[in-house]
């Protein structure tokens, strides 16, 4: 029964991953990250992703602040924050977030305030969605690892 649990979780995890790839939320780069994880660095993916969350939330806060100013003149700074976000998002394979950032950057290049605000809304939404899904993925992974360990108890 326990063994079956681990296998089902494995299926769940792969189903979720497939779904995320299919939806364009994640791309091949995320697989590259997974391939870099092994016994010598067993938590590599979650470590990198957690750094990404930490950095991104700082950037998103800054973007929100800059865009809610009365006089919007900081397009250059917004562009710089976006460049960072684009870089880190593509580095972890967060395709949809990257694309929304690119559209956002285009709006800043045009000094289009309304466009920027819309893009920020979309970005915050996409980011939240990504974060939730990745947390779900890591949870399943953790449960599966636990279940797999129980499945193979130490022999006498």
């Amino acid at each position, binding site marked *: 029964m326990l063994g079956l649990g681990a296998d089902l979780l494995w299926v769940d995890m792969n189903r979720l991953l497939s779904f995320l790839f299919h939806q364009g939320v994640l791309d091949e*780069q995320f697989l*590259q*990250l997974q*391939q*870099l994880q*092994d016994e010598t*660095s067993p938590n*590599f993916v979650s*470590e*990198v992703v957690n*750094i*990404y969350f930490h*950095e991104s939330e700082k950037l998103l806060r800054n973007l929100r602040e800059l865009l809610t100013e009365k006089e919007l003149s900081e397009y250059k700074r917004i562009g710089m924050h976006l*460049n*960072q976000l*684009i*870089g*880190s998002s*593509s*580095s*972890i*394979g967060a395709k949809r977030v990257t694309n929304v950032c690119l559209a956002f950057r285009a709006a800043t290049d045009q000094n289009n305030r309304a466009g920027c605000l819309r893009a920020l809304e979309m970005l915050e939404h996409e980011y939240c969605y990504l974060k939730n899904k990745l947390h779900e993925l890591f949870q399943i992974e953790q449960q599966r690892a636990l279940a797999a360990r129980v499945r193979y108890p130490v022999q006498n």
Partner: protein
Amino acid sequence: MGMAAAESQQYHVLAVDDSIIDRKLIERLLKTSSYQVTTVDSGSKALEFLGLQENDETNPITPCVSPKIHQDMEVNLVITDYCMPGMTGYDLLKKIKESSSLRNIPVVIMSSENVPSRITRCLEEGADEFFLKPVRKSDLNRLEPHIKRTKLKDQKQETLQKVENIDEQQQQQIVQPDSETIIEQQQQSLQQGNSNKRKTMEQGISPETDRTRPRYNSGIATVV
């Protein structure tokens, strides 16, 4: 350090990137490809690590050798991001290629943007490779040829230097230590023309050959 076990030798790569995520990634990529890695977050820190002070324009020939421990670690390749605040990857590349002690170190540039003019500019300035981000494990296969080529060049120069030193020693043994005899012989050869020149060459003395012998000491410190 001997060059004996070339196959299992670990090369040391210095990775430069202002993004913490990209630093983690490149470090992991390099480690899984069996490289020793040091990461820094800026061009100026990279130069510091390489033993070259940023303001070293007045005397570029003599690097500031800092007494830090990492000076013992030879850097076999530098891989740097292009877009960095302050000193860009391009600026760093230039500084390395302008330094007589560092210019042989292969440099690779990484960029998230595919700008042909940027790529050309970097390659013209001496970059050995240009990688588009995100960097893949397969990209790293392109590093070793550059490292090996540089090592081979360094080894050849070392060997030539040694051969030359031995050569000079032997020459000094053949020639009589009596300076007057040498001057006499030289005067003879100048007065008597070709046949005597040939004779003096056979004897091992030849003022012309000495002047025109190529020098292999290019000023690169032979760090072992």
